[in-house]
């Protein structure tokens, strides 16, 4: 490895005037330093001006952070780098700005809800209690939520699943296009509108009173498009070769779908359904219109007003005294724990059951 190509200086270009590779750069700790300085300035200015709100201090600090970053970089490096650094700092600030309220939300709910949340709270209703009294529990609401969400799932999951099968395996032409379009439209329906529809149709139209079932119908309407969308995605991930392999063996199409396509994507489908369940569990508005609320245990979803977890939180909040606010937080924590559990479980299944293409 010694040979060099003959290199005669026949092509006499002017000496290359390439930009120097090395240039002045800020030390690596500079962003942290700038952050500290601006945080300090933010607190200082906030204190000096006598603003009580920490929100202002934070905003001032964030603005200073971006401005100082730009100034220092433009001075030491160049304008292009300065723009890059500003983008970086703005994005970090975005992250910080968003994290604060979201962390606060989680922390407040957990710390204030944990005060009351125990076995007693989960196993008792509000029966026989005056509004100002301490104690009481969430059992009736938990029961109501489970029943309403269960019924909604029983309605929505099969319809949603079959619709997705139709769209992916059979659908083409005008009907399929219409279904696709209206599934999209349905995804955007505000939950209160779904509630109003059932109210107009079931209560005002057919004359039934409030019941868990009425609420479940509204929840089912909200759940269907979510199930269709997620199932559709999962079915589309099933490679076509699998279908063809099965069809080529002489298996009829419906059996191919049932025995090959759906089992391949069952993990993803389950995840989708569970996420949809988690979503409707937290819906308050339609339940408020249709289930009405009840302080007593009503185990029958088909007759009479029931309670549900989100509705319980709302009603206790509205009472507005110290004891009821505590109950509202505890109810909120119960609800959030339930929803998060469903979410984690669903994602767990997705990861565990993921076919090569699924998940992620």
């Amino acid at each position, binding site marked *: *490895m010694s040979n060099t190509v003959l290199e005669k200086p026949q092509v006499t270009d002017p000496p290359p005037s390439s930009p*120097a*590779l*090395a240039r002045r750069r800020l030390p690596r700790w500079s962003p942290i330093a700038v952050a500290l300085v601006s945080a300090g300035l933010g607190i200082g200015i906030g204190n000096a001006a006598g603003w009580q709100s920490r929100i202002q201090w934070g905003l001032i600090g964030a603005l200073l952070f971006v401005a100082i970053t730009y100034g220092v970089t433009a001075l030491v490096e160049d304008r292009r780098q300065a723009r890059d650094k500003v983008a970086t700092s703005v994005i970090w600030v975005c992250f910080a700005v968003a994290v604060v309220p979201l962390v606060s939300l989680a922390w407040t709910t957990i710390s204030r809800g944990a005060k009351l949340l125990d076995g007693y709270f989960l196993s008792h209703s509000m029966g026989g209690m005056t509004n100002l009294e301490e104690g009481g529990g969430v059992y009736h609401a938990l029961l109501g939520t489970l029943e309403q969400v269960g019924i909604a799932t029983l309605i929505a999951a099969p319809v949603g699943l079959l619709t997705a099968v139709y769209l992916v395996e059979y659908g083409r032409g005008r009907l399929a296009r219409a279904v696709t379009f209206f599934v999209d439209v349905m995804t955007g329906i505000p939950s209160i509108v779904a509630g109003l529809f059932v109210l107009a149709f079931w209560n005002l139209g057919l004359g039934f009173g409030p019941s868990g079932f009425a609420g479940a119908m509204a929840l089912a309407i909200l759940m269907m498009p979510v199930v269709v969308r997620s199932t559709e995605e999962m079915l589309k991930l099933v490679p076509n070769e699998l279908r063809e392999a099965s069809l080529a063996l002489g298996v009829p199409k419906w059996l191919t779908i049932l025995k090959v396509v759906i089992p391949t994507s069952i993990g993803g489908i389950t995840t989708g359904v569970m996420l949809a369940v988690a979503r409707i569990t937290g819906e308050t508005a339609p339940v408020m219109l249709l289930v009405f609320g009840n302080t007593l245990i009503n185990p029958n979803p088909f007759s009479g007003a029931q309670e549900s977890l989100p509705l319980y939180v709302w009603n206790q909040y509205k009472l507005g005294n110290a004891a009821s606010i505590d109950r509202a937080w505890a109810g909120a924590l119960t609800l959030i724990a339930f929803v998060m559990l469903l979410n984690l479980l669903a994602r767990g299944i997705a990861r565990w059951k993921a076919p090569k293409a699924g998940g992620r």
Partner: protein
Amino acid sequence: MAKRIDVSGLTAFYGSHRAIDDISMSVEPRSVTAFIGPSGCGKSTFLRTLNRMHEVTPGGRVDGKVMLDSEDLYGPQVDPVSVRRTIGMVFQRPNPFPTMSIYDNVAAGLRLNGQKKKRELDETVERSLKGANLWNEVKDRLNKPGSGLSGGQQQRLCIARAIAVEPQVLLMDEPCSALDPISTLAIEDLIADLKSKFTIVIVTHNMQQAARVSDRTAFFNLAAVGEPGKLIEIDDTERIFSNPSVQATEDYISGRFG
């Protein structure tokens, strides 16, 4: 404008995996150097360490020295952005920016560097497209999207984009592997033209191509799957293909393995 590259003791990692191990070589200015070797031997990884693109891959890390004339690309004050501006790259799959027109694609690098004057942009775009042997084919549709071109034209567009910023070195990572034979021939002709101005390094799977276009050839190999790739030898292309000094090279070139 072309510079030589001297690599010494270069090792590249993906996370904790050692992809290439202790490579030292020189790349001569105004010449074409080809990297050949079996799949997975690290020749593409090595190529990407030459303009600090390797560290863009998550977990990518490099030890060692790459000297461009007298500057170490991995020196403490060196800005990877300036490195990539100085050492251009053409990728395996043609990747013109799909949201930009042909003109904007070629001008993209210049615009990034603050060139805004319409006249100068026009001149450079024309010069670069001519340099990439593409001007005659696209001069009437400069404002059409680049994605409407054929694969070979797209690749030449990418070459035009790379040479528009007047780099010192041009790295090509299997530039013809996604192209048909006729487009490949066009690119090979282009490489022969370009070497009068640029230092060119090309990774290729195709040994005939290496023999056709390159002045020097480096052969890479790996002991086993999972082992790091190593440089076996580098020499004049003619010698590598007629009388290599290492047995493994001869085996690979004559098709006895790999």
